[in-house]
């Protein structure tokens, strides 16, 4: 049971607020939901859209079609055509006074219904169309108006009583507008209703805090800034600190400085910033300093499309460092998984004294989801420390597991100099071939030999047909596989959470017996496919469904691929 709807409007029309309120309202009804925000390039006043999906169970992706669209105006609405596919039977409510439905929007079989939203809003002084739209949506989704009244009171409280009253009246006007057809959805609360609402960016922030990150240095960049803005006021109350650095070169080096000082540290950025951090990440590799970099990917290359999503920084995260520089690369699979994956990344970085790059993206980072609270996992950064080093202490000692106890400044007798130059076990610079090989070996070994357990991938289903994916494409793949199974098909889904070190054997085992393989990724140059070829041994030549952003994959198109392959 699910339905998709979009609310669009010019800047200032408040469609994002309406969407968020609708999500709150769903939660109050024990329903699940996902809301993706879509913007134009303007900083303020540009057109915007709330893209929502409502269901009686968790939803991780948008659907193939939208059953309902509410257009507050037609301002640049063509920009959203790609992102809001309407189809036969879709209902399109549009502001009466804004003129006829533009041809780009009109589709075969779409039921267009002009609504006097402006006039309804104007019944109240200071009334706003977005509250009317919320009322229309609530009615069509069969939601309780009383819940809405309470919610508006809660959310608009700080704007004053009058504002609340006007919004409630506008809502009612929409809700009770007599021109509305029958509801298009009937709300049955989920048996285990959502108990959390979060965005992926908040999820990464929380995961970091859960794992013990108490230092963040970063430079603002879309779409990572809101993770930082979420973290800043919170981390400082946990006795931590967030520094707004002068640039990303400073950010990563500040984080390394803090981490070297013993405090689990993180930075967050997007592609252009990651590019600037690579030299610093290499220093973390060579000096064996744990640090976590969250890259909330956006459209590339270069400045690209800052407000839109893509999975095309994979190449860089995997292979962007100069020299032989083993490190960790992880990717959360959906909004709530941002918590787990980031927490795990911090944990691993600390344990393995290596940098970890976490690849989130705009679609995940800036989507809000109603979800179950992510399980508490006991991943607290536990660095192997040299507590009482002694005079023969060797910071880069060659150990069996490759991890060498680290003396934290303040530890008596542990003084040593961390170095990005190649060094012998004591840390003294060395250009001898043997020292080089020993250190290269140990830095590779500590990652390769570590047992990463079961978290390396999410797996479901069985059969000789398999789908491999990663990151935010997982949502659509997961749903496609579910549909395929409901149709009687058999398919294995494997979504990689840990990309480096590559879990070659585990993946080979997971793919044993597979004779048809589909790879799904959101990049133009097939980066994930190339990663699989380079680091893994696939049993068969895969079919590759690769597409750049910003339009997300839908379950339907993946289902079509699956059908055609079986």
């Amino acid at each position, binding site marked *: 049971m699910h339905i998709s709807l979009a609310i669009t409007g010019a800047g200032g029309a408040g469609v994002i607020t309406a969407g968020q309120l609708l999500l709150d309202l769903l939660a109050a009804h024990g329903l699940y939901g996902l809301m993706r925000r879509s913007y134009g390039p303007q900083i303020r006043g540009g057109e915007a859209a709330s893209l929502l999906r409502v269901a009686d169970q968790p939803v991780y992706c948008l659907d193939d079609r939208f059953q309902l669209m509410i257009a507050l105006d037609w301002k640049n609405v063509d920009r959203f055509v790609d992102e809001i596919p309407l189809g036969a039977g879709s209902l399109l409510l549009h502001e009466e006074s804004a003129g006829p439905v533009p041809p780009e929007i009109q589709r075969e079989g779409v039921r267009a219904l002009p609504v006097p939203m402006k006039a309804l809003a104007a019944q109240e002084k200071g009334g706003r169309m977005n509250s009317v739209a919320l009322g229309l949506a609530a009615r069509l989704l069969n939601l309780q108006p009383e819940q809405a009244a309470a919610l508006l009171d809660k959310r608009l409280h700080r704007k004053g009583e009058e504002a609340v009253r006007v919004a409630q009246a506008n809502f009612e006007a929409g809700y009770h507008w007599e021109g509305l057809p029958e509801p298009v959805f009937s709300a049955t609360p989920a048996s285990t209703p959502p108990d959390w609402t979060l965005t992926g960016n908040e999820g990464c922030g929380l995961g970091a805090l859960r794992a013990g990150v108490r230092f963040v240095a970063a430079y603002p960049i879309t779409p990572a800034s809101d993770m930082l803005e979420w973290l800043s006021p919170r981390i400082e109350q946990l006795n931590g600190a967030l520094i707004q650095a002068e640039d990303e070169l400073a950010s990563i080096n500040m984080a390394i*400085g803090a981490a070297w000082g013993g405090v689990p540290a993180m930075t967050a950025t997007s592609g252009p910033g990651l590019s600037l951090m690579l030299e610093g990440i290499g220093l973390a590799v060579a000096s064996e300093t744990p640090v976590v970099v969250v890259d909330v990917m956006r459209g590339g290359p270069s400045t690209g499309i800052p407000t839109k999503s893509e999975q095309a920084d994979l190449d860089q995260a995997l292979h962007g460092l100069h020299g032989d520089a083993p490190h960790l690369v992880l990717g959360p699979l959906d909004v709530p998984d941002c918590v787990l994956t980031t927490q795990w990344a911090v944990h691993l970085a600390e344990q393995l004294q290596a940098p970890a790059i976490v690849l989130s993206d705009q679609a995940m980072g800036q989507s809000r989801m109603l979800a179950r609270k992510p399980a508490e996992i006991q991943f607290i950064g536990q660095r192997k420390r040299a507590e009482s080093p002694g005079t023969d202490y060797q910071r880069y000692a060659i150990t069996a597991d490759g991890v060498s106890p680290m003396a934290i400044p*303040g530890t008596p007798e542990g003084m040593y100099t961390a170095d990005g130059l190649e060094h012998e076990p004591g840390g003294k610079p060395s250009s001898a071939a043997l020292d080089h090989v020993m250190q290269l070996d140990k830095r590779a070994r500590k990652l390769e030999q570590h047992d990463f357990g079961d978290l390396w991938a999410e797996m479901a289903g069985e059969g000789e047909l398999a789908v491999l994916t990663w990151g935010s494409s997982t949502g659509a793949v997961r749903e496609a596989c579910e549909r395929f199974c409901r149709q009687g098909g058999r398919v294995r889904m494997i979504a990689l959470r840990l990309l480096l070190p590559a879990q070659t054997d585990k993946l080979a085992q997971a793919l044993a017996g597979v004779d048809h393989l589909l790879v799904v990724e959101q990049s133009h140059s097939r980066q994930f496919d190339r990663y699989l070829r380079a680091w893994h041994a696939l049993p068969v030549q895969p079919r590759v469904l690769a597409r750049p952003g910003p339009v997300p994959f839908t379950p339907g198109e993946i289902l079509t691929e699956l059908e055609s392959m079986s």
Partner: protein
Amino acid sequence: MSEHSQPKAAVKPAFYKSGIKPVWCPGCGHFAVLSALTKALAWLELPREQTALLSGIGCSSRIPAYTDLYGFHGIHGRALALGTGLKAARPELTVLVAGGDGDGLSIGGNHFIHACRRNMDLTYILMDNQVYGMTKGQASPTTDPNWDHSKLTPHGTHMQPFQPAALALAAGASFIARGFSGDPAGMTRLLVEAIQHPGFSVVQVLSPCPTFRPEQKGWKHSIHAWDWEATDDAVEAARRIHADDGMHTGIIFRAERPVWQPVRCQQTTVEAIEQEFVP
């Protein structure tokens, strides 16, 4: 303050030295900086394990490994960022940052001005030999415009050199001094004062590179101490720096300015924060 140059009996400068033999050329000014630094540390009786020395890349930046402190030999130009992160995370440590004129003012120029502006309690030792030593003799931002001995700029740079003190002042540093490696006692004094100063202290040390700038051996004749006390007036400091030939040593500027350190407290828990996610 002359007693600063004599360490107290309790701790010897050698206590702060590691056994590693410097890669520096014979006669390099950086030896004297190392020695003055260890003297200053001894005078201050700083616990070794509570003191960190971070650097970038260059001959000068090799200095951490030659001390017996917690050291970090980072990457070129980013030492101040490393130090800023460390100090923010571990405010109780004494954090020293060192590097060359190339490291600090060419590739690292942005972090330099931002560290001045931020005014954290850090000490920055700028070992200025007006050349890139490590890469074998190219002009740096403090090189005389007519020095034409670098193959990369065979006619000289024809650019006005930076005055590190002027930049530091304009950017907001609260302690600015200039020392000379040929005057170890004076340098030790400056370093002691710099480390004691609360806020960002810049100590530019003229530290000759006999290999690529042999003429700097003549510095010992042109160096002279300022005959005035440090000022806390920025305009007066600007006047003095401007009138200066770059060869005066002493404290140029010292002012009380708000020392920056991130605001923090232990007021909540992760569990409490998680409550916000309940819809």
